[in-house]
């Protein structure tokens, strides 16, 4: 594939101001300028055009992974991030780049009027370069988004497993939501660690916030309780609502080895009586 001609670069440099103007008009017409201050847009279009010109001067390759395009790539990454912040979607950021294609093609068409073969070749080169730029903004946008989702998942994992101290020697773990394998692992670890740290004798696992107790959840609960007992502490499951109790019976789950209560208050009362104190008393 033939590279870009220096004559193409000269045409772009010679018409820089005109290109920027037409580009801004195209952005305006398509509504891609919304939510962005005019002076910012002006600055961005100017900077990007300059970067493209610098890049073309430096780099003969139109492969944007090349070293000569590094600054341009970085500019696009920043652009993508700032656009995401103002709530624009990935395709709108990509459109910012694609909107320059029209004015650029017009320019080249006028420039190579006498050489149709060369025109086609140069258009193809410029077009693939700009497609790669556009795709790069989308890729960056997606990467940022995935990073946000991953961070939120991790935060959620941490947030949803708070082990609280209810009383001297009594810990409570209010479970909320879905107990998938990864979460139940985190739950078990943090609870066992807190039992060691606080020297607690009784742990209450409250499942009021767990909408579905199926065999997998039950298995996780049984394993956790077994581990707690192995450490010399005891465990009470609270928050077993009537519909959950009936479902457990029909499922055929044998939770007879567990101590269960319908609510947290009853579980605490039981825990205190086992410890030899009652709620009215000062400890």
């Amino acid at each position, binding site marked *: 594939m033939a590279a870009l001609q220096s004559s193409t670069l000269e045409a772009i440099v010679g018409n820089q101001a005109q290109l920027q103007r037409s580009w801004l008009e195209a952005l305006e017409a398509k509504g891609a300028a919304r939510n962005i201050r005019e002076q910012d847009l002006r600055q961005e279009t100017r900077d990007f055009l300059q970067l493209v010109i610098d890049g073309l001067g430096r780099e003969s390759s139109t492969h944007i992974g090349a070293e000569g395009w590094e600054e341009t790539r970085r500019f696009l990454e920043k652009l993508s991030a700032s656009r995401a912040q103002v709530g624009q979607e990935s395709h709108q950021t990509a459109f910012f780049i694609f909107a320059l294609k029209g004015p650029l093609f017009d320019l080249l068409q006028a420039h190579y009027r006498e050489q149709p073969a060369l025109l086609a070749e140069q258009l193809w080169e410029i077009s693939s370069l700009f497609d790669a730029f556009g795709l790069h903004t989308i890729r960056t946008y997606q990467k940022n988004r995935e990073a946000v989702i991953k961070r939120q998942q991790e935060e959620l994992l941490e947030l949803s497993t708070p082990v609280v101290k209810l009383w001297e020697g009594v810990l409570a773990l209010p479970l909320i939501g879905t107990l998938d394998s990864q979460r139940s692992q985190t739950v078990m670890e943090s609870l066992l660690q807190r039992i060691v740290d606080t020297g607690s004798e009784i742990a209450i696992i409250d499942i009021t916030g767990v909408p579905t*107790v*199926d*065999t997998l959840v039950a*298995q996780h609960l049984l394993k956790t309780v077994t581990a707690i007992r192995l450490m010399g502490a005891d465990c009470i499951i609270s928050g077993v609502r009537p*519909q959950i109790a009936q*479902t457990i019976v029909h*499922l055929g789950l044998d939770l007879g080895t567990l101590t269960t209560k319908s609510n947290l208050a009853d579980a605490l009362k039981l825990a205190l009586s086992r410890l030899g104190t009652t709620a009215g008393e000062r400890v």
Partner: protein
Amino acid sequence: MTIREHGSQPVRIEQDVVLARQLTRKLASDCGMRLVDLTKLVTAVSELARNTVVYGGGGDMDWEVIEEAGRTGVRLVFRDEGPGIADIKLALTDGWTSGSGLGLGLTGARRLVDEFELDTAPGRGTRVMITRWI
């Protein structure tokens, strides 16, 4: 029997089990199912959807809201193209599992619904149909 509404939803990964549960919860509560029955149905869905993912290698859940002789029901079909079940009798035995679970998913699900139909053979995949009437 008339079908009031129907649709299908993929059950491929662990997260799809949660989505299947949520959809069932919505269907059942829109039909006015009581909380106890709803919880039973959702739990059965949880078991069967997980079986589809873990043992069937992923599949689909077809759902229908049906009416028959003046009563309304929710019917769900779990389909996969997995290895199928060789010994149905064994698979429907409490406490038996080919994996690492408690071995109560399939039998438990059967007890949680009004109608249960298992159609499977080695190499032919597995199809489980459940119905819960209101």
